[in-house]
């Protein structure tokens, strides 16, 4: 069991964004977290990665309690994520976006970096090589020198994923990876995500778009901060409560 969340609760003022949320993710799985807008999905990600602390509950990753750990340390332990808003470094090029994300592996000390030691130079060339490899994997190597803010939307999303991969995460948290994509981009993304799983990354996906269900081993449905269903993809499709959560209340 790679990630275990128990009794996670977060309140903002009077509003309870996440309420006694439990879940777990096992090594090698792809788990989907779906629900309507405002259900609390991104909040859960923020709680896992330590952007803010929960009011109650615990997050245990690889046996370690990471509940109140700062984001950069959570990243150091092997959790990578994409962001729905502000997913990129806009003034960096595509290549810079990815290579900047290689901060952790291989890590050069400040001394090495500043004095341009052989270790640093070796690390930098490894980083460059791996960055190009990742860009090839997601199909962005042709635009590697373009500024990220000038990319079309679908490319930006893929770059977000590429960037997250650069952290070589054990657990990758994707936040709406299919948002704003056209059908061919979606197909490409789904294939890429499956490839990542085959290469050993455990993946959790927050999504609106139901097409993600095909890819997932398990799906958790959340509404108004609470888990309302957990099960296999096809079960989720037919479940009445899920349907009413999506279409009875707020729309995707």
């Amino acid at each position, binding site marked *: 069991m790679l990630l275990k969340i128990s009794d996670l609760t977060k309140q903002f003022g009077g509003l309870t964004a996440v309420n006694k949320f439990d879940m777990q993710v096992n090594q090698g799985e792809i788990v989907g977290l779906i629900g309507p807008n405002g259900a609390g999905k991104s909040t859960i990600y923020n709680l896992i*990665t330590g*952007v803010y602390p929960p009011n109650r509950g615990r997050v245990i990753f690889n046996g370690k309690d990471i509940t109140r750990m*700062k*984001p*950069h340390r959570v*990243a*150091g332990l092997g959790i*990578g*994520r994409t*962001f729905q808003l*502000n*997913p*990129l*470094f*806009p*003034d*960096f090029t595509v290549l*810079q976006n990815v*290579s*900047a*994300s*290689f*901060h*952790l592996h291989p890590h*050069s000390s*400040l001394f090495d*970096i*500043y004095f*341009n030691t052989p270790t*640093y130079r070796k690390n*930098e060339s490894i980083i460059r090589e791996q960055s190009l490899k990742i860009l090839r994997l997601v199909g962005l190597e042709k635009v590697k020198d373009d500024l990220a803010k000038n990319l079309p939307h679908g490319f930006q999303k893929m770059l977000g994923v590429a*960037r*997250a991969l*650069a*952290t070589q995460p054990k657990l990758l948290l994707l936040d709406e990876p299919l948002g704003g994509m056209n059908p061919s981009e979606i197909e490409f993304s789904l294939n890429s995500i499956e490839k990542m799983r085959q290469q050993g990354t455990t993946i959790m996906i927050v999504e609106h778009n139901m097409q993600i269900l095909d890819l997932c081993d398990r799906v958790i449905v959340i509404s108004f901060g609470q888990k309302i269903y957990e099960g296999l993809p096809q079960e989720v499709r037919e479940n009445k409560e899920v349907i009413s959560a999506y279409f009875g209340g707020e729309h995707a």
Partner: protein
Amino acid sequence: MKRDGINKWIKPVALVGLIIILAILPLLFSSPYLLHVLILTFIYTVGAVSFRTITISGQFPLAHAAFMGIGAYTAAMASRYLSWPPWVTIPMGAIAAGIIGIVFGYPFARLRTLYYAMGSLFFGMAITYIVQSLKITGGYVGLTKIQPLFSSVSRVPYYYFFLVLALFCTVALYRFEFSRIGTNLKAIAQSYQLASSVGIDEARYRILVVAVGCFFVGLVGAAFAHYTPIVTPSTFDLSATLWLAMYVLIGGINSFAGPIIGTPILYFIPQYYFSNLRAYSPFIPAVILIIIAYLMPKGLAGLIFMLNSRYLDRLWFRMNGKGATHATENQ
């Protein structure tokens, strides 16, 4: 790009040329006033470059001149009261500025841009007021009887000292910016959340860059204390910080060369060529600021970049027998 051949050599050649000119200058012109203004230009250039280094991370150090003052006063007090030699007091001043930079940065670096800027502005004022109110720092009048760096009357040894010091600081800050450290800082400036998610300890990096910036401005401040006959608080007040910011903006905040271009234009030229205007002389920098603000918002470095692209393109094509075609550089 076809033009890369020339393009790559222009900057290093210009740089070496500039250094050579600066190195032989005292042999050609011996006016003490010229050397004095150049020495101050070197000092303010380091102040401007280190100011800009801090801004890479998205923070605005509106106390920067006060840190130059911390370096200066530390060296001055150690020299006057403890009789320590300059080669001890100058590093001391730099380290003191760096440490106080960390002490300030620790609680304040977590504030968002506007509040950090205001916080550092107020902090700089606090330093100014404290220095003005303590007898040990000489109050409004300042400190004297500091051991000078060189026993010679001529300014020439000082000139070379400060030239070398400025080059050292500039190279040190250049390396800082153009290594992965600089990349991480730029990442933090664009999105601190994203930077955290790839493992960058954004709080620590922000404090680091403030400490480094303060260290170097403290270093030139401390050296300055051993050059000038008196160290006064008004040299390091808010107005001084604002002018450092102006040197950076005139040259262009987006380019490392910006402050190096801006300081001579906004400080040296008015100070040396227009000093005979006396009371009217501040109009000159004001006019320069107005011209740049209206005509060249990206600073002079931005202008040079544009010229670099357009005219050198045409020059290259003409030189190679091809008619002037459309500009090839993407803006």
